[in-house]
C-alpha cells in the first residue's frame, strides 16, 4: 500500500467522526472517542504494510510528483506510528475526561457540544504524520499549520473556563507570531539557496561563500520550531497554555506536538549538518546555546512549582532541552555510537510512554480530587497503593532513574554530549538532571510521605486503569530492554 494512504485514511476517519457526531443524537459522546481510537489503531497497523516509491519503483503511483513533497522512510514510519499512538491514547484519555469537559459547556453537565473534541485530534494527527514525511519546506509549513490551527481550538475548548480561554488566546497570538517567523525564515532560505526541497539543499549550500542570509533564515526557522518544541526563548507560552488547556489537550501538546516539532527539526537540520555544509559549525553552536538555555530555564523554573500540571509544563521544556542537546551533539547514523536521530527518537518514544501515563493519572486526580496541585497527590500511597506505585515509577522515569525507560534516553544524550566533547553542555545537563530529580521527587514525597487530605479511594475507570498499567509496565520493560524501539527505527 502506498504510504500516502495513511494520511488520507486518517483525515477520512476524522471527517466520518465529525459528521456522525453531528447527526447521531446520543447524549453520551464516549463512542466518538472510542471509535477514533480504534480507527487510529487500525491505521497504525497499516503503517507496517505501507511502502514508499523505492520499494516498488515500477508502480504508476511511484512516478507521481507527490514524492517531491512526501517521503517515506523508517524515520517517517516511526513518527507516524508515534502520532497515531499518541492520538489514540489522547482520545482514550478524553473519553474518561468527559466529566470535566461537560462542566464547561453551554448547559453544564451535558455533553452537548463536546463532540468535536474527539475528531479534532485526528486532524492534528494527520498533520503530524505529514510533518514526519516532510521533504519540502512548503509542504512542511502546510502540515505544521494544520496541527497548529487544530490546537488553537483544542486549547480553548473549555470556553466557559477562564483559564482555558486565556490559554487559547496566548497560544493563538504566539502561535501566529511563530508562523510568521517560519514563513519569513523559509523565504530567506529560498532566497539564498533557490530551493525549498530539503533533499536539494545540501547541493545548493555546498561551497556557498556568503552564508549570512542563509544563517538568518535558519535562525528564523529555528525560532519558529523552537516555539513548537518549547525551546528557550520561545517557551514563554508553555506554562500558561499547559495549565489552562483541558488535560488531554495538554498531554497531546506535550507529546504529539513536541514530537512533530522534533521530526521537522531533524528533517530541517539534516541538510545543514552534513559533512561539507558551510554552516555546520554555526548551526551546532546555535543548537548548543538553545539546549543549554532551555535545560537551565526548564529545570530551574520547575523547582518552585506547586501546581503539578504547571510542573509538567516546565518539565516538558526541560525534556526539550535534553533533546536539543542530543541534536547539538550531532552524530550521523553511521558510527559506533548511537546517532542523534536515534537518540532523539528513542527519547521521545519513552517520553510518550512516561508523560501520557502521568497525564492519565493527573486526569483522574483532577476528576476525583478536583485539583491539579501537588498537594492533591498527598497520601495517594495510602489510599491507592498500586496507583501510587505506578505514579512513582513514571515520575522516577521522568527524572531519569536507571532501569526505567527515561534513564536510557538521558543516558544516550549524556553519552552523545561526551562523544562530541560538549563538556559545558554535559555539565549543564547534569545540573538539569539533578534539578529534575528534585522536582519530580517532590511529588513522590507528597504521594508517600504526607498524609492524605481526602481519605477516599480513587476508583479508576477501566480505560484509564488499563492504560496506566500498560504504560507503567512498558516504562520498566524498555528501561531494561530498549531493543524494540530502536529496532523500529531501522
Amino acid at each position: 500500500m502506498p504510504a500516502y494512504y495513511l494520511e488520507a485514511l486518517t483525515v477520512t476517519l476524522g471527517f466520518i467522526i465529525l459528521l456522525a457526531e453531528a447527526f447521531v443524537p446520543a447524549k453520551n459522546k464516549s463512542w466518538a472517542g472510542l471509535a477514533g481510537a480504534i480507527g487510529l489503531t487500525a491505521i497504525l497497523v497499516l503503517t507496517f504494510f505501507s511502502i514508499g516509491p523505492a520499494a516498488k519503483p515500477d508502480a504508476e503511483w511511484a512516478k507521481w510528483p507527490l514524492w517531491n513533497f512526501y517521503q517515506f522512510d523508517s524515520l517517517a514510519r516511526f513518527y507516524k506510528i508515534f502520532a497515531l499512538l499518541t492520538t489514540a491514547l489522547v482520545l482514550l484519555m478524553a473519553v474518561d475526561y468527559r466529566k470535566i469537559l461537560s462542566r464547561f459547556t453551554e448547559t453544564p453537565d451535558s455533553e452537548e457540544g463536546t463532540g468535536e473534541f474527539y475528531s479534532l485530534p485526528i486532524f492534528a494527527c494527520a498533520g503530524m504524520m505529514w510533518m514526519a514525511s516532510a521533504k519540502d519546506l512548503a509542504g512542511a509549513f502546510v502540515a505544521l499549520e494544520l496541527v497548529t490551527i487544530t490546537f488553537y481550538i483544542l486549547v480553548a475548548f473549555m470556553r466557559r473556563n477562564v483559564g482555558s480561554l486565556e490559554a487559547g488566546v496566548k497560544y493563538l497570538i504566539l502561535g501566529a507570531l511563530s508562523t510568521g517567523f517560519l514563513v519569513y525564515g523559509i523565504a530567506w532560505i529560498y532566497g539564498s539557496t533557490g530551493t525549498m526541497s530539503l533533499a536539494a539543499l545540501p547541493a545548493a549550500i555546498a561551497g556557498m561563500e556568503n552564508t549570512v542570509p542563509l544563517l538568518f533564515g535558519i535562525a528564523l526557522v529555528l525560532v519558529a520550531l523552537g516555539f513548537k518544541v518549547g525551546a528557550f526563548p520561545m517557551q514563554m507560552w508553555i506554562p500558561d497554555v499547559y495549565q489552562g488547556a483541558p488535560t488531554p489537550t495538554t498531554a497531546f501538546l506535550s507529546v504529539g506536538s513536541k514530537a512533530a516539532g522534533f521530526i521537522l527539526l531533524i528533517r530541517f537540520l539534516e541538510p545543514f549538518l552534513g559533512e561539507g555544509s558551510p554552516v555546520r559549525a554555526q548551526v551546532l553552536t546555535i543548537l548548543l546555546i538553545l539546549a543549554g538555555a532551555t535545560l537551565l530555564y526548564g529545570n530551574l523554573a520547575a523547582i518552585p512549582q506547586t501546581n503539578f500540571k504547571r510542573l509538567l509544563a516546565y518539565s516538558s521544556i526541560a525534556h526539550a532541552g535534553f533533546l536539543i542537546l542530543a541534536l547539538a551533539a550531532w552524530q550521523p547514523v553511521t558510527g559506533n555510537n548511537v546517532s542523534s536521530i536515534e537518540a532523539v527518537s528513542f527519547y521521545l518514544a519513552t517520553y510518550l510512554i512516561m508523560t501520557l501515563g502521568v497525564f492519565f493519572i493527573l486526569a483522574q486526580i483532577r476528576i476525583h480530587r478536583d485539583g491539579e496541585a501537588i498537594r492533591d497527590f498527598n497520601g495517594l500511597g495510602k489510599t491507592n497503593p498500586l496507583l501510587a506505585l505506578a505514579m512513582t515509577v513514571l515520575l522516577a522515569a521522568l527524572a531519569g532513574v536507571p532501569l526505567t525507560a527515561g534513564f536510557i534516553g538521558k543516558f544516550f544524550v549524556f553519552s552523545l554530549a561526551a562523544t562530541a566533547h560538549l563538556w559545558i553542555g554535559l555539565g549543564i545537563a547534569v545540573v538539569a538532571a539533578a534539578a529534575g530529580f528534585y522536582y519530580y521527587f517532590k511529588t513522590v514525597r507528597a504521594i508517600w510521605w504526607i498524609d492524605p487530605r481526602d481519605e477516599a479511594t480513587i476508583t479508576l475507570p477501566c480505560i484509564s486503569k488499563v492504560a496506566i498499567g500498560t504504560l507503567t509496565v512498558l516504562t520498566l520493560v524498555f528501561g531494561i530492554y530498549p531493543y524494540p524501539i530502536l529496532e523500529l527505527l531501522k
Partner: protein
Amino acid sequence: MAPAQVTLFTINPPTHIPHPTASAEHFPTFTGFCPFPHASSSLYSPCGNGFPRRRTLFPMLILLVALPILAFLAILFGAPARLTAIGAATINLILGLGSVFCWQSDAWDFSLQVLEKPAIHLAFGYMDGMSLVMVLLSVIVTLAAVLSGKAPTGSEKLYYGSSLLIAAGAIGAFASTDLFFFYAFHEMALIPTFLMIGMLGRGDRRGTAWKITIYLGLGSLVLLAGLVWLASLTGTFDLTEMKAAAGAIDPAAQKGIAALLIIGFGTLVSLFPFHSWAAPAYASAPAPTSMLHAGVLKKFGLYGMLRIAVPMVPEGLQVWLTPLLVLLLGNILWVGLVTISQKRLDALLGNSSVMHMGYIFLAIAALIAVPENKLALPAAVVLMFAHGVSIALLFGLADRIERSTGSLDLSDMGGLAKSAPGMAFLFGIAAMASIGLPGLANFSGEVLVFLSAFENYVPADGLGRVQIACILAIWGVVISAVYMLRAYRNIFQGPAVKSTEKAADLTLADHIPAVLLILALLAVGIYPNLILNLLPQ
C-alpha cells in the same frame, strides 16, 4: 597505568591450580592467624581453573538478582510478606554460599545484549573474588535484615518488599560486569530506601528522607557524569574491556574523571564532607533499611572505587591523593568526635558507620599511592565485609532494644543487662567487633588497612603522607572504644531505670539473625583467609 596494577586485578586467577576434587591437599589448610595474603597460596573453589570451562544452561547469578525481585512481585500481589521475604533471602543465602565453591566457573556468567550502539549488556558474573565477597555480604545481611525488624501493622508489603528490592539492587550492582547495569542496579535500590525512611522512619522522617534523597540523587548524577566520561573515552561498557582500554586515557581527562568519581562515589559512601545525610538517615530508617543500606548498599561506592576508579584512572587519583587523605581523616577524626557526643544510640551508630568508612578509604588511598600494594585491596575488602556485617548487627540489635525498652536515649537507660542478659551479650560482641577486638572480623580488616599504609615504606625516606594519615587514623580506634564502651555502659550496666527493668529479652527468633551475623564475624575474624583466599593474590 603501571603494569603491576594489572596483575593486581587479574580476572582469571593463575591457571596452574588443579581442580579441588583432584587432590585433597589443595583444600585450604589452616596456617594460623596470618593477615598477610602471600602467606597462603591455596585457593579453594577453582573448578574452572586448569579444566576446560564449562557452560551450563542456566546462568545462576541472574537467579540471585531475580529471586528477590520475583519475591517482591509476589508480595505485591498478595503473597504473605514476611514468609516470602524470608524464603527468598534463605534461598539466596544458600545459593550465595554454594557459589563460593565454584565461583570461577562460567556457569555464573550471563549476558544479554540490550543495546547495540553503544553495546550494553545485561551481564552478570563474578569478575573476581571481590564481587563474590560483596555478594556474600549482601545475601548474609539480607537474610538477617528480613528476619530482624518488625513491620508496623498494615505496612508489611512495603516493609518486606522494599528490603527485597534493596537487596536485589545491591546484588545486581556487585554482580554486574557491565558499567551500565552496575550503576543502574544501585540506583534502583535507592528508591525503596528513600520510601522506607520517608514512610516508616522515626523522628523527623520526612526531613531526613528528603535529605538523603537529594544528597544521594545528586551524588549519583555526579558519578554518572564521571562514568559516562570514562565510558566515552574507553568506547565500551564492559568492565573488563574498559579496564584494558583505560590505559590510553590522557592524564588531564584522568584527573577530571577521578575528581568526579571521588565526589560521586564519596557522596554515596558518606565521605567527609558529603556525609551529613548518613547519620540522621540511619537513625531514622526502619531496622532492615539501615541494616541493608549501611551494611551493604553503601559499600557500592567503595566497591566502585576499587573496581573502576583505582584500576582505570590511577594517575588521576594520584593527583587527588592529598585531598582524599584529608577527607578520610575528616571521616575518622572529625566524625569520630561527633560520634562521641551523640546522645542517642541510633544517632551514635549512624555516625560510627560514617566514621568507619574512613578506614576503608585509607586502604584505597594506600592503593592509589602504591599501585603495586598487595595488601591494600584485601584490606579494603575484608574491612568492607566486616563493617557491613557488624553495623547490620548493631542496627538490628538497636532496633530490638528500642522495641523492648521504648527508648534509645543513652542518658535515660541503664541496667538492661539484668533484665535482658542475652541482648547484653550479643550487643557486647557487636560493640567489640565495631571497636576492633581481635578474633572478630573488623580487627583483621583494620590491621590489614594499617599495614597496607606502610607497604613499601622505606624508613630512611621518612614518613610519607599516607603513613602520616595512617598514624592519625589509628587514633580513631581509641575514639571508637570511647563511644562504644560508653554506650554499652550507659545501656546495659548500672542501676536499672523504669524503661529497662522489665524489658523483655531476646526470643529464640531474635537470636537467629544476630547469631548468623556473629558467626560470619567470628569466622572471618579467626580465619581471615576465608576471604583473603578468594581475592587475587
